[in-house]
């Protein structure tokens, strides 16, 4: 009897720690995999790989800046739209709505989070494209496939992340503090903005960062509406015009047919894997920074 108890103890422990080790190794292994597989391109192009603005794989010219620009541009659009919308909604659920009716809004947000990205992509193709053509008429887009379309679609997709985490941060502020503020004569808006938001500020930044992490890595929806045009390095970086053009992001390049084309050529394959490595590093960095901002045991979503 005692003996079997012993054995199960060992088994449970070994299985738990073993499974954890497997999971950790798989994800570390992935990082190593992308590092090792991209070695040829680093040897070949060196730093030129991340500073080059031209990508012509047939002549072995690999510069990822146009795609990095595409990724940053769509993510910036997404953040500009999603952060006010998400944080505003979080203010509504955490500061205005009574406790019971919060769940309705949170349930809606949770459902939005569950919509598959391919469905967002489909809606983008069938509904958003025409809207963007009208919206950007002044900049004369060639079609509805623009960086702006991708960014707006991403905005809708990251609103749930931003909202949920911002709501967690705000509702983590003790109710006593709100009561104290109200009894000192502050209005609800002042309490929310000057007391709750100030205390929850790291959490709000973290919500934006984790939303950004999602935006940077999203593939399928953006793929369907961005036009996937290579070498769209804008002449003026801060102008609005490039947003009305088609483009390419790190993820849409990775998800596209070039990944299959590259298969036979080690250097070209290395260049594709390099995109993966850069994406991996940036997304992990942003998300870890976001996670670090919220204290241990606080927000977990």
């Amino acid at each position, binding site marked *: 009897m005692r003996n079997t108890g012993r054995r199960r103890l060992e*088994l449970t422990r070994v299985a738990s720690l073993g499974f954890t080790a497997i999971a*950790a190794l798989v994800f570390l292994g992935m990082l190593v995999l992308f590092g090792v597989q991209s070695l040829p391109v680093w040897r070949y192009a060196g730093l030129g790989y991340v500073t080059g603005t031209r990508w012509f794989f047939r002549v072995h010219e690999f510069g990822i800046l146009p795609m990095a620009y595409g990724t940053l541009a769509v993510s910036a659009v997404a953040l500009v739209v999603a952060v006010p919308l998400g944080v505003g909604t979080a203010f*509504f659920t955490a500061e205005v709505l009574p406790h019971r009716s919060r769940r309705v809004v949170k349930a809606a947000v949770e*459902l939005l989070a569950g919509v598959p990205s391919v469905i967002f992509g489909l809606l983008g193709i069938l509904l958003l494209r025409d809207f963007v053509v009208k919206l950007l008429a002044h900049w004369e887009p060639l079609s509805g496939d623009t960086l702006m379309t991708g960014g707006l679609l991403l905005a809708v997709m990251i609103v749930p992340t931003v909202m949920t985490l911002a709501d967690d941060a705000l509702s983590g502020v003790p109710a006593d503090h709100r009561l104290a503020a109200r009894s000192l004569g502050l209005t609800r808006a002042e309490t929310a903005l000057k007391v709750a938001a100030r205390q929850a500020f790291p959490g709000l930044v973290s919500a934006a960062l984790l939303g950004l992490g999602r935006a940077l890595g999203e593939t399928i929806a953006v793929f*369907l509406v961005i036009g996937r045009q290579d070498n769209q390095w804008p002449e003026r970086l801060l102008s609005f015009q490039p947003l009305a053009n088609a483009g390419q992001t790190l993820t849409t390049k990775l998800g596209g047919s070039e990944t299959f084309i590259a298969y036979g050529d080690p250097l070209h394959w290395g260049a594709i894997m390099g995109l993966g490595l850069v994406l991996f590093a940036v997304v*992990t960095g942003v998300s870890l920074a976001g996670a670090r901002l919220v204290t241990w045991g606080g927000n977990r979503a």
Partner: protein
Amino acid sequence: MRKGLDRAFTACVAACAAAVCALVLGIAGAIVWRGMAVLDWHFVSRLAAGGGGAGGVLYEILGTVILVVTALGICAPLAVGVALTETVYLEGREHRRTRRWLFSGLYAANSIPSVLLGIAGLIVFSRWLGWGKSWLAGGILLGLMILPTVSVALIERLRSLPRKYLEAAAGLGLSRSQVIWSVHLPQSLSGLVSGLLLGLARAAGETAPILFAAAVFSGAGIPVGIRDSPVVALPYHIFVLAQDSLDPAVQDHLWGAAAILLGMVFALSLLALPVRLRIHEEAKSA
């Protein structure tokens, strides 16, 4: 003046919330409305025809179910292991650093773009193991993708277990593994189930991980064996057809397929929702 600002603030944030709710209703509404036109028994019981743009989506539905069930099998044991390690085996001050590493690792793993999993799968399963395209590769990749979500859901639940249960179990002289099997696991079952449902909802709709190593557009039925046994799946089906969506007949087919996929995903998330919201609030207030 201050009253006015207060009202403006309330109106502003209420408008944000209304916009978000309208988005959800609009998306679901548009898909149900357009999908209803093509959804009938034939659509779910027949095979795709005419280059995929006509006929039904029977195999696509079955393929998605196969992928999701495989992901469940891969993810569940790993998630339980990770969660128990985090909450039970790494309990106490001396393991604080390791625990933090593990938790940061979960965050990092959760943020990994799913397309990278797909490409890693292409290298490992298709190239190194020589599987070609295989349903098993897809299931494994999807299982790994949802692992962080499910683990964190379970960890939240385990953390909010009443201390007195554990103290009572310890008082009865149970060993740590006996406590795990008699208190931790049964008491956190709801967390595991709701976390898994939510993860599976995500897995059912993901395209990027199965893009390279698992899914094909046509020519696959029920897979037999592992090597070169691809599946057709709803998200991939929609992904491919959406790139060729000018034909109105294809559009109808697309809306129908999207309605079915969204129905599956929402059904899974709605099942998980009540438990999840409750656990989340409890974990926060604990």
